[in-house]
């Protein structure tokens, strides 16, 4: 499948202009920063604080913004118009995802600095953050493609928020209900494991396991979002 950088850039620029004029969605950019400031005051060593900061940012910013951008295009019929131009599936999906990717990366970098989080392994940290942004962007794309309106999209991310943000707390339930051990394989849980690595010592396995599990999630959700988009090219 061909990708045209010119078309990707055109869609990126268009999305940037639309996003910067859409205050209802662009206000989401400040939430991760607010959360970072609140937790900084509480102390960076607060248990689960870094995990909550990143996981909530991925849901409230990355997933929400992407879902809204896609759903708004559907609601106003611009997605179908875009599909009728020479832009390929990958041109549209990459173009529409790059804005959310860049915004998430910048806001998370600022939030990390404000919060004062220092990763045990900077490369693993960067890798898991990049994977998570792609993963939650794909999740947002899926939510947006399933929604008919902007309102539906806002509601559709609630299950994502509940499952993904709540998964790391599932360990508490897993003691009484072993079935909840499955929540440990959620990307948010794996992110918490990786963020919690000790500066004093960790094994390669401690780094690789969360990265590989999140990579698998990223691949699966990205493929699902591409398939779903292609199905939306046609009416039933």
């Amino acid at each position, binding site marked *: 499948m*061909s990708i*045209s950088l*010119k*078309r990707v*850039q*055109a*869609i990126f*620029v*268009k999305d940037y*202009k*639309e996003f910067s*004029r*859409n205050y209802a969605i662009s206000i989401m950019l400040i939430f991760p920063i607010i959360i970072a400031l609140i937790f900084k005051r509480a102390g960076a060593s607060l248990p689960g604080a870094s995990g909550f900061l990143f996981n909530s940012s991925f849901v409230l910013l990355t997933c929400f913004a992407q879902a809204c951008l896609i759903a708004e*295009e559907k609601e*106003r*019929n*611009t*997605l*179908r*118009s*875009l599909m*009728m*131009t*020479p*832009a*390929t599936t990958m041109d549209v999906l990459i173009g529409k995802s790059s804005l959310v990717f860049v915004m998430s990366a910048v806001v998370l970098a600022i939030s990390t600095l404000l919060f004062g989080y220092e990763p045990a392994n900077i490369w693993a940290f960067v890798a898991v953050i990049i994977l998570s942004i792609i993963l939650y962007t794909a999740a947002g794309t899926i939510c947006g493609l399933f929604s008919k309106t902007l309102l539906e999209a806002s509601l559709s991310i609630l299950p994502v928020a509940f499952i993904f943000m709540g998964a790391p707390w599932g360990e508490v339930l897993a003691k009484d209900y072993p079935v909840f051990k499955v929540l440990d394989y959620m990307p948010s849980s794996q992110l918490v494991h990786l963020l919690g690595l000790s500066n004093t010592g960790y094994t390669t396995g401690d780094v690789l396991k969360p990265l590989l599990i999140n990579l698998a999630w990223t691949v699966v959700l990205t493929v699902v979002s591409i398939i779903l988009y292609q199905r939306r*090219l*046609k*009416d039933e």
Partner: protein
Amino acid sequence: MDVIQVERVRKRFGNKDALADVSFSIPKGEIFGFLGPSGSGKTTLIKILTAQLNPTSGQASVFNEPAGMMQQSAQKMRFGILTDNSGLYERLSIEENLELYRKLYDLPRSAVDKVLQFVNLSGERKKKVNLLSKGMRQRVMLACAIIHEPELLFLDEPTSALDPVNSAHIYKGLRYLNDKGTTIFLTTHDMAEAELICNRVAILYQGQIQTIGSPKDLKRQHRENVVFVELINGEAYELPIDEGTADQIADWMRRGLIDRLETKEPSLGDIFIKMTGSELL
């Protein structure tokens, strides 16, 4: 060379045929009008021809390729489309919307100026789309559809939201595009519009083509074989066209008695009603 070929295309939604064994072809350079009331299957056909919908059975081809191939970028460069499903970016200006399309079609900067002139919106280019009237939005959507001067243009009710002045401007533009070689596939329920700009028309009713031909030929076929004569004394006659009538009219003319003489030519609307027994709404 035919740009569009449709053979026995059927599209079924549930228990209802939206299209039933529709067949026709459109040669290059023609303005072809698909006429029919709302819900007659016009938009369904455009969706099939632009690969947005698969037919239940039958074959549709565009540019000698199966219509399903119209999803490919190379094919999309060759056609433009304006339908009810077209949309605009509300927070962007007219110019910004067109800039997006210019870049997607990889066109020179001058393409935006050219198309803005075409739709008579050069003076409004900086206006945000959410401030535009319905007619202006329709013109911007048309501009997006034709910015790349496509070989084939699908238009679904292109002037439905326009006033007569703007409609006339669009007709002029469509003829200009057609003169440059663009084949135009137009759906409308406006018979006057079809009569004015289409080389050929097909009347679609309940998913089936009722008749097809040039507006002139259709009118000739469905003309009532009578002549109306009104004499200067106020008497009016409806006479069959035959030798006796010709002699009678010649006599009245010699004596200077004729005030008005005309054949009754049906409009496309009359033909539609005659063929379907239904008003065109």
